C-alpha cells in the first residue's frame, strides 16, 4: 500500500516536472493552445506589432515580414533588435519557404492575415496567432504579455508593461483635461481613398485612452468594415470631428483633392484649421508599446497646437 502510494506520488511528481524538463510552455492564443519550447531563440514575427513586442523585451528575431522594405522596421526598433534579421516577405503573404529555411522555434502570426496558413506554419514551428490588425490598444498590451510568456520572459514582460504604463500615465497627465470633450478622428489616406480608424481599432482606442471622444457609429463585419472604415467625403461630414489627424501614404493624397469643395471646407476641423498630418507608417502600421509612446508624443504636440487656437 505504502509502496503503491509512493509510486503514485512519484509518478505525479514526475509528470508535473515533465513540462519543465522538456522545456515547453503552453501558450493560449487566438487559434488554440500551442506548446512553445522554453526560451525560443529563433523567432519570426509576421506583423510589426510583434516586432514592437520583441524590441520592448530586447529580443532579436531571425525573420520579419517587413513587406520587403527593410526601412519599415524603424530605427526605434532596430536600435534594440539590430539588423541581423532576414525578410520573410510581405505581411500579407509571407514566404513559407523562407520561414522554413530560417528554422524558427517560434512564429508569431496575425489572426486576420495568417489564420489561413496557420496549419502550415505550425508544421514549420510552434506558432502563436494574435489579433494584431483587428486588435485595440489594450489588446496590443495583452499581446505583448503573451509574447513575453511565449519567450519565457513572463516577469520581464510584466515589468516592461508596467514601465510603459508609467510613461503613458505621465504623457496622459501632461494632456490633462485638454482632450476632454474634443472629438478626434484618425484616418489614413492614399491616392485612392480614405479609411477612418474607428473606436474599435488600435488608434481609435488609443485616442480614447488620451481622453478624446469619437462620433463614429460602430459597424459590424470584418476588419476592413469595423476597424478601418472606407469613408467618402459625405460620410466624413457626418462624423465631422473637431480634430482630424491624417496619415498620408501618397502625395498628393486622396483627401487633398477635397480642398476647396464646399462640404470639405465646412468640416469643423477644416474650418478651424485643425487637420494635422502625422507619419502614416508609424501611426497606422505600427502597434504596441513603443509605437504607442511615439503616437502619444505626436498627440501631445498636436494638442498643444490645438489648444493654443482655442
Amino acid at each position, binding site marked *: 500500500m505504502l509502496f503503491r502510494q509512493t509510486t503514485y506520488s512519484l509518478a505525479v511528481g514526475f509528470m508535473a516536472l515533465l513540462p519543465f524538463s522538456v522545456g515547453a510552455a503552453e501558450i493560449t492564443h487566438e487559434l488554440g493552445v500551442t506548446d512553445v519550447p522554453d526560451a525560443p531563440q529563433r523567432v519570426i514575427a509576421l506583423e510589426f506589432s510583434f516586432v514592437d513586442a520583441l524590441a520592448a523585451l530586447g529580443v532579436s528575431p531571425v525573420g520579419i515580414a517587413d513587406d520587403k522594405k527593410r526601412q519599415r522596421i524603424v530605427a526605434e526598433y532596430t536600435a534594440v533588435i539590430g539588423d541581423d534579421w532576414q525578410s520573410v516577405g510581405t505581411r500579407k503573404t509571407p514566404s513559407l519557404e523562407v520561414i522554413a529555411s530560417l528554422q524558427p522555434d517560434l512564429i508569431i502570426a496575425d489572426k486576420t492575415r495568417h489564420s489561413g496558413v496557420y496549419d502550415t506554419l505550425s508544421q514549420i514551428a510552434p506558432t502563436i496567432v494574435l489579433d494584431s490588425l483587428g486588435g485595440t490598444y489594450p489588446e496590443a498590451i495583452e499581446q505583448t504579455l503573451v509574447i513575453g510568456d511565449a519567450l519565457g520572459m513572463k516577469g520581464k514582460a510584466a515589468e516592461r508593461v508596467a514601465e510603459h504604463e508609467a510613461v503613458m500615465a505621465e504623457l496622459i497627465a501632461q494632456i490633462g483635461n485638454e482632450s476632454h470633450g474634443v472629438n478626434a478622428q484618425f484616418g489614413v489616406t492614399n491616392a485612392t481613398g480614405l479609411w477612418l480608424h474607428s473606436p474599435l481599432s488600435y488608434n481609435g482606442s488609443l485616442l480614447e485612452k488620451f481622453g478624446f471622444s469619437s462620433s463614429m457609429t460602430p459597424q459590424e463585419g470584418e476588419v476592413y468594415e469595423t476597424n478601418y472604415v472606407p469613408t*467618402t467625403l459625405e460620410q466624413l461630414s457626418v462624423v465631422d470631428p473637431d480634430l482630424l489627424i491624417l496619415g498620408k501614404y501618397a502625395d498628393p493624397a486622396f483627401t487633398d483633392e477635397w480642398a476647396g469643395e464646399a462640404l470639405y471646407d*465646412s468640416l469643423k476641423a477644416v474650418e478651424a484649421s485643425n487637420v494635422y498630418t502625422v507619419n502614416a507608417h508609424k501611426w497606422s502600421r505600427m502597434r504596441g508599446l513603443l509605437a504607442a509612446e511615439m503616437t502619444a508624443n505626436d498627440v501631445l504636440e498636436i494638442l498643444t497646437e490645438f489648444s493654443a487656437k482655442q
Partner: protein
Amino acid sequence: MNARHRLPLQAGAIAVLAFGVLILSVYGSLMTGGRSDIRLSDLFTASTNGAVILDIRLPRTLVAACLGVNLGLSGLILQALTRNPLSSPSILGINQGAALGLTIGVIFPSVGALVGLMPLAAIGALAAGFITFSIAGVFAGRIVSLRLILGGVAVGAFASAMVRFSFTLEDDLARQVLRWTLGNISDVRWHHVQSLFVWSIGGTVATLAMAHRLNLMALGEAQASGLGADPRLTLMIGALMSACLTGTAVFVAGPIAFAGLVVPHMCRFCLGPDHRILVPATALGGACLLMAADAASKWLTSPVELPVGVVVAMIGAPYFLYQTLFSKGAI
C-alpha cells in the same frame, strides 16, 4: 406594314414607362448618399447641402449614367458584330483587359506616366477584344459562337488572374489595384464626368451613324457585303469603338459586368431588332440601369456603400442565366 414598325409593345406606353424609369433612377441616385439630411429643395438654396448635391451627388449620378451609356452601347455593338446574344464587354474579356491595362499602369508608374491610364485601359480592352475575336475566327470571317464565348472567358480569366496576382503585392498597391477589379464610383467628381461625357455623347452619335451597318451585320457578312457595306470595315470600327467605350468606363469605375449584356437584350425585347431604335434606347436604358444600381448601392447596406458593380452583377447575373437557359439558337 413594314416589320420594322411593328413594335412588340405600344410605342406610347414604352415612352411613358421609359420616362418614369428615368425620373425614378435620377431621383434615387441623387437622393441617396452618406448624409440623410439632404433634400432636392436644397439645390435651390445656397447651403452646404446644396453644394453636396452639386459637388458630389450630381457628378456621381452623371458618371453612373455615362457608364450605362458606354457599357450598353459597347454590348450592343459587340452583339451585332458577333451575331451572338451573349457578347458583352465582360463576357468577351474586354472589361478585364481594360482593368489589366490600368493595373499595369499602377504597378509600373513609368508606363502609366508615359502612356496615360485612360489610353492604357483602351489598349488593354482592344488587346483583349482582338485576342478573343481571333480565337473565335472573327477575322477569318467565320464566327464560331462557342469559341467566341470560351475564348472570351479564357481571356477574361487570364486578365483578371493577372490583376489579382498584384493583390499579393503590398497593401497600399493592392488597395489601388482593388479599385480596378470591381466597379466602384463612390468618390467621383466633375473631372471624371468630363472624361466620360465626351465618349458617351460621341459614342452614341457614332453608334447611331453605324446603326444601318449593324443592321446589315445581323443579316450575315455575305449579305452585308452584298448590300454594299464591307463587313470588315464595320467590324474594325465597331471593335475599336467598343474598346474605347469600355476602356473609358473601366478607367473611371473599374469593370462593371453584365450591364453591357442585359441592357441591349431588354431593349431588343421591348423594341425589336432595328439598331436605329436600339442605339438611343440602349443608351437611355443603360443610363437608367446604372443610376438605379447606384442608388441601390448607397441604400441597400447603408451607411456602408456597396460597389456599384456588385449591384449591377446582382441584377445582371440572373438575367445572364435566364438568357443562357431560354435563348433560341445562336448559342
